[in-house]
């Protein structure tokens, strides 16, 4: 489901559990999982899509199937306040240079926290059924609410 700037990297390239299964003699000692392939000394200075994530990093696995409702992001209303980025418990808000880019649908669990903390009027993030097309959701975005006197 990867789209946009992160559409070409290793994010969510396979279903969780679709990894190759090996025997007891080949599993890692102590259930240790490497996050990256090779030397990762400077990984902290790299953007996610530049990092060489290992096959057993959660980054490369998609858990999109865990979700039954999803947040949809409306660029036209967003003020790039970064509230959703701060609050998302699964680091699934993708933002660069303080500009909101969208949702990491490979790791978003549909908890709705981003919608809850969004301060705009109308909200820039709203929850929809997983099956609903994003374009259709955006076409029916609610109007700005007037303050009641």
């Amino acid at each position: 489901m990867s789209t946009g700037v992160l559409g070409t990297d290793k994010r969510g390239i396979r279903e969780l559990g679709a990894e190759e299964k090996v025997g007891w003699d080949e599993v890692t000692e102590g259930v240790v999982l490497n996050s990256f392939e090779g030397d990762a000394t400077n990984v902290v200075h790299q953007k996610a899509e530049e990092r060489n994530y290992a096959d057993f990093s959660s980054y490369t696995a998609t858990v999109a199937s865990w979700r039954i409702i999803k947040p949809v992001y409306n660029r036209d209303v967003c003020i790039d306040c970064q509230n959703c980025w701060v609050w998302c418990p699964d680091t699934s808000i993708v933002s660069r240079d303080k500009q909101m880019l969208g949702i990491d649908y490979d790791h978003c669990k549909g908890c709705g926290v981003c919608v809850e903390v969004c301060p705009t009027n109308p909200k820039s993030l709203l929850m929809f059924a997983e099956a609903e097309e994003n374009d259709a959701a955006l076409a029916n975005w609610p109007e700005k609410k007037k303050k009641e006197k």
Partner: protein
Amino acid sequence: MAKEFDLNEVEVWDGNYAASQALRQAQIDVVAAYPITPSTPIVEGYGAYVANGYVDGEFVMVESEHGAMSGCVGAAAAGGRVATATSSQGFALMVEVLYQASGMRLPIVLTVANRALAAPLNVRGDHSDMYLGRDSGWIQLDAFNAQEAYDMTLCAFKIGEHMDVRLPVMVHQDGFTTSHKAQNVTPLKDAVAYKFIGEYVPVNDMLDFSRPVTHGAQTEEDWHYEHKAKQHKALMDSRSVIDDVLAEYKELTGREYKRVETYFMEDAEVALVVLGSSVETAVVAAEELRKEGIKAGVVAPRCFRPFPFDLVRDALEVPTLKAVCCMDKSAPGGAMGALFNEVSAAAYTTNARPMMTNYIYGLGGRDFAVDEAKRIFKEQKAHADAGHITTNIQQFSGLRGPKLGFFETRRG
């Protein structure tokens, strides 16, 4: 740099002090501890070494034994040499984290002064806590006296940290009987002891920023079984490393230890299988009975886990051996004693196939003296002479009230 500790050639130490000196000589990076009777002096002594400049590492005071072992797991995963001490209720509170330490393959050393488990609350020594750890995936070494508490603690680091093992190790000693009884102990000089253990070599340490790792991953039905099998194999295979380390320690000190100690077993007709400080009691009883013409022997597993099925079988493969009694110092909770079950399984694969019986004894620190050991030996002799087990298979030693026993033999 830690100061050298001035040691005499022979010191008068109790088991706790011996263990704490061994921990000091190992130059541990992190000790996270919560004191509990009767192991308190181990960490109390260690804390004094830290305060007085004899240790460079960190001493972390935590809120509970669960926190103590959790701190040890974190520090070991970070890449340090780590140890702590506990007993009884504290051991029970650690249990959840003991399984984490072994599953994560972290070579932590835990010195245990064995003590009974409540209820009823009891601070005295029995093997309830040691038995509680027997499925936890740790190597469990058993020291029968203060010297061995020192020796086994040094060996524990070298065994657990071996690259073919990488498993945590418990060093058990009997609460009070060993932990608080001052005896002559011959220690190594600091530099000699440290050289024997060697520099700590971290594996998959979290502080290696060039190679970030996830510790403590979740596995479900698709991966868990393979990981547990690999862990079990490492524990089973640690037997040869334990043998090698004990042999190396003998080279250094002249003190010989084996995974299973045997006394007078070459021509034994009857034998007791015992753990802990009772071993010396049983050996004295066997010596006295041999003067009366009873060919008594003693088998003492020094390594409780991995259970030395191989060497117990070897020890019992004696053509003259007729009757063996396994002594369990832990309330068996509706079963035969664990030592009885495990030793009997090994005995069943021998040609000798001796008659096997079980005594529960010494619970909550109830005394077990030479006369009682001799009485039990003589009971085995009666089985041997009769050609069948003449008592219940499970009996209770030193218990007040009507005679208690369970199950009779169908052999005979």
